[in-house]
């Protein structure tokens, strides 16, 4: 953020107020109105909110500096400011789009049934969705670390009940685990804020960025806040709550949780490391963070490949994708000054987050339709579904393709940026991890598509007709992710020259070939195929060739699954949380 | 001077009753006797403390507040001990 010491509300700053006030007001009104009006109010809010987000997106590059609004006219440190820079604007826009698509999709699932005045699930769902939106907007533009804490809690309280909307014991337990672990994370974040206030007398991000120096209280604060936020983001090994929560929630809720909610705390890690204290964490902590990310990619992907149920597979793939988001940190450290720089690597990370938000939301929606149509989501039983629900499967496939990083997707641009940064900073090992991540993504996409495209034993009859509008919403999100690479990001995120967003076809195919080939190998080696593999003649031949390799890979896979099960025990996860906090403290101390 | 001595004596006496009540709470064998120790100590102990402090407050409003504190504690204590005793007699487990 630019250097403003005595700042004032900028032109267009009131848009930031509206971005929070609109969903909050809508949620409160919906609460009173009740019944069918809840849905109408929520749906009516969505175009308005999108318009506000678009207005912010238009306004930010015009001023060339963040939009600022001083709440109550009080300037920090006494008052609280809202600020929207390019990153905030982009995140708010994508949030508005994803929320809108989820809203369109959810009309079928969360409609007040005819004959009843008000039903529980729709009432809660629409209000919670609006609250998630308000909280995320606040997270993206809050200028004060404590205000951000309240926003983060708002986000958690909106997200947790979504998990258990169906009221089954299994999802209630998932929701409780989620809530308790998230609370543990936010308390650690809160400890950090008090230490920072005690040291610098302010919690304002811009003021702090001028005052921060590496004293012990600041280091302790940074380590605890980072660990707390990682717990809320479910970065490996702090992911105990994510798979059951994201897989157990209703499809529309899963899309919001997986696409949007985890990005809130991720965004705050970025704020903390890049804006509040860019000089502090240092290269060692950055390597550590990315190492956790790499572990998340391996664990998440391998365990995803071993899942029987589609929604659990997607949930574990979210785990892997979250890991991917953290690979940018060591690449963003300037080798000379050891400072975090808002350059190409950060842009790559943010683009990955945006691509994942849209693609994963679309994939969860598609999976929800498949679930609804079949009455189950067993991967082994997906045969013939591509014929019965072509649009849903297409949406799923396009979402997956865009995550692999094929042009012109946003993830393609992200990957190019990250690889370039890795080359520039001479950290080849992260380039390897980035490529491996793409291969893994490809492998579980292939696993699902392999089953979905396989012919069924008998024609699939859908249990319920799948709403066209829902399929359209899922497809729109996937397309959105696929086309994100074509957007001119220059005004919002810094894109270094030399990265073509629209590369020559041949070169693009060449770069795309590696992850696909690697993905095929991984999918064959590690995937849970059952009878499915036998149906594909070529694969059978391959299996015969690599039989022993597959046996070793499967043993490895089973081991990872077991380790994952252990790590997801409550006490083990708490243990990991403390270890992560202490290790970050030590790494930052060492990097001083 | 006389006021100081009065306050010291009264508050000390109150503290003694609290101490005795606490010892009773810890040492007595069952719920009812423990309750007995506690309520006696609370009522009398707090009464003495309030009495000791009465002479040191400024104005009648402050004194009134002190007395109100004592009365409210009496009321709450009486109610709660009744309820606990009732629960104990019905044989419900207590903390």
């Amino acid at each position, binding site marked *: 953020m630019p250097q403003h010491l005595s700042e004032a509300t900028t032109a267009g700053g009131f848009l930031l107020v509206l971005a929070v006030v609109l969903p909050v007001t809508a949620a409160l009104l919906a609460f009173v109105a009740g019944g069918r009006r809840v849905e109408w109010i929520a749906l009516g809010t969505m175009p308005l909110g999108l318009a506000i987000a678009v207005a912010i997106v238009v306004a930010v590059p015009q001023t060339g500096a963040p939009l600022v609004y001083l709440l109550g006219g009080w300037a920090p440190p006494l008052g609280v400011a809202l600020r929207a820079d390019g990153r905030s604007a982009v995140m708010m826009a994508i949030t508005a789009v994803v929320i809108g698509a989820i809203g369109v999709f959810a009309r079928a699932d969360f409609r007040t049934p005819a004959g009843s005045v008000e039903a529980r699930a729709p009432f809660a769902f629409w209000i919670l969705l609006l609250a998630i939106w308000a909280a995320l907007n606040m997270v993206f533009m809050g200028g004060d670390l404590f205000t951000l804490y309240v926003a983060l809690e708002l986000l958690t309280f909106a997200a947790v009940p979504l998990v258990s909307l169906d009221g089954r014991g299994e999802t209630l337990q998932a929701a409780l685990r989620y809530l308790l672990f998230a609370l543990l994370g936010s308390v650690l974040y809160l400890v950090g804020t008090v230490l920072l206030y005690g040291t610098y007398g*302010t919690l304002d991000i811009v003021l702090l960025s001028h005052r921060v120096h590496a004293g*012990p209280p600041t280091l*302790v604060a940074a380590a605890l806040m980072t660990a707390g936020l990682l717990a809320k983001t479910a970065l490996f090994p702090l992911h105990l709550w994510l798979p059951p929560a994201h897989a157990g929630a209703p499809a529309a809720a899963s899309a919001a949780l997986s696409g949007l909610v985890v990005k809130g705390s991720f965004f705050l890690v970025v704020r903390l490391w890049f804006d509040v204290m860019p000089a502090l964490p240092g290269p060692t902590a950055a390597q550590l963070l990315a190492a956790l990310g790499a572990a998340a990619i391996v664990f998440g992907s391998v365990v995803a490949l071993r899942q029987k149920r589609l929604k659990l597979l997607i949930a574990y793939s979210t785990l892997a994708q979250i890991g991917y988001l953290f690979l940018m940190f060591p690449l963003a450290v300037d080798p000379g000054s050891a400072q975090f720089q808002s350059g190409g690597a950060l842009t790559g990370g943010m683009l990955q987050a945006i691509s994942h938000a849209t693609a994963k939301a679309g994939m969860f929606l598609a999976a929800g339709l498949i679930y609804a149509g079949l009455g189950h989501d067993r991967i082994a039983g997906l045969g013939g579904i591509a014929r019965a629900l072509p649009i849903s499967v297409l949406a799923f496939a396009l979402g997956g393709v865009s995550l692999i990083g094929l042009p012109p997707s946003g993830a393609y641009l992200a990957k190019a940026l990250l690889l370039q940064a890795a080359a520039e900073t001479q950290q080849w090992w992260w380039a390897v991890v980035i490529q491996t991540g793409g291969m893994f993504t490809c492998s579980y996409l292939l696993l699902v598509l392999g089953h979905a495209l396989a012919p069924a034993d008998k024609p699939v009859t859908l249990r319920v007709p799948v709403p066209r509008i829902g399929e359209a919403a899922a497809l729109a999100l996937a397309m959105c992710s696929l086309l994100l690479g074509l957007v001119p990001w220059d005004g919002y995120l810094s894109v270094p020259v030399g990265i073509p967003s629209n590369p020559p076809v041949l070169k693009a195919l060449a770069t795309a070939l590696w992850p696909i080939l690697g993905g095929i190998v991984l999918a064959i080696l590690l995937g849970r195929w059952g009878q499915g593999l036998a149906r594909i003649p070529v694969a059978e031949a391959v299996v015969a060739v690599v039989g022993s390799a597959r046996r070793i890979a499967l043993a490895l896979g089973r081991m990872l699954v077991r380790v994952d099960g252990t790590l997801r025990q409550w006490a*083990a996860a708490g243990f990991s949380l403390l270890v992560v906090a*202490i290790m970050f403290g030590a790494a930052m101390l060492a990097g001083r | 001077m006389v006021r100081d001595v009065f306050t010291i004596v009264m508050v000390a006496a109150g503290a003694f009753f609290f101490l005795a009540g606490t010892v009773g709470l810890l040492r007595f064998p069952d719920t009812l006797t423990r309750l007995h120790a506690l309520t006696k100590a609370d009522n009398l102990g707090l009464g003495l403390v309030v009495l000791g402090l009465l002479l040191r407050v400024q104005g009648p409003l402050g004194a009134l507040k002190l007395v109100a504190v004592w009365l409210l504690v009496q009321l709450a204590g009486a109610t709660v001990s009744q309820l606990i005793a009732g629960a104990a007699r019905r044989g419900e487990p207590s903390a």
Partner: protein
Amino acid sequence: MTMAMALDSGLAVVVLAVAGWTIAARGTFAAVVGFVSYGLLLTLVWVRLEAVDVALTEAAIGSGLTGALLIGAAARLRAGEASPVEGPGVVLRLEIAVLSATVAVALAIAVLLLPDPAPTLAPAAAENATATGLGNPVTNVLIAFRAMDTLLEKVVLALALVGVWSLAPDRVWGGYPGPRHRSDPHGVLAFFARLLPPLGIVVGIYILWAGADHPGGAFQGGTILAAMWLLVMMAGLTDAPPVSRRWLRLVLIVGPVVFLVVGLGGLWLGDAFLAYPAAHAKPLILTIEFAMTLTIAATLGLLLAGPPERKLS
């Protein structure tokens, strides 16, 4: 070592001992009782730290309402306590103890190394106090300088209630929250519940009113009102209202809505969102606080009552 120092140290030791007991106690019920006394001791600590506003909040919410919430839960979960759940093994426990202690020590070092003289916003808060016309600096921070936090926190409360309600079984949606409390209409609890509320309501409103210039405010006052309501409900003198009642829902959001309306008025009139025109600051703030007290009392009461459990007849 001075006398005050010795007292403070003694208080700290007792506080930690009780804290340790609540963690180590075998029975859940005993642990909860320990927690309530811990909260009361903490109130003393807050007074020692010259934070009377916080002391009131801690006594009312941190110890009182949270204690009531946990005791109620412990009573309802008692049936499940018979089958104890297995905790982590001894080695893991020890490791976690060491790690927790490490974090605590790091935190203690950080606290000891906080800069001296400490940075403070107290002068800035004092300087700008004229803008609101209120004498209580904490209220000034809550309602003016950091009004956004307070507004968001109200939304958090409302949302927590939506979350709690969303847990109701579908067939009782719109019905009465929590179990129906019954007790002897001539019993001592019913007597208490008739005697105390008139006094409690006066005290609650007094604390709200005094909060403008002295310790107190909407939260502390609202909590006392909530406690009175809960007392009357627990004594079986009245039932909690069904969650589908329109008037109830209005009460539950009137606080944040008035806050938002006044805030947007500030935006409209040209100053800023959540800015109060100097001439009308105090009456506007009191209006907000009054509305918030109502909402807080109702929300806290219903949060304790739980999700709907009984059908609307």
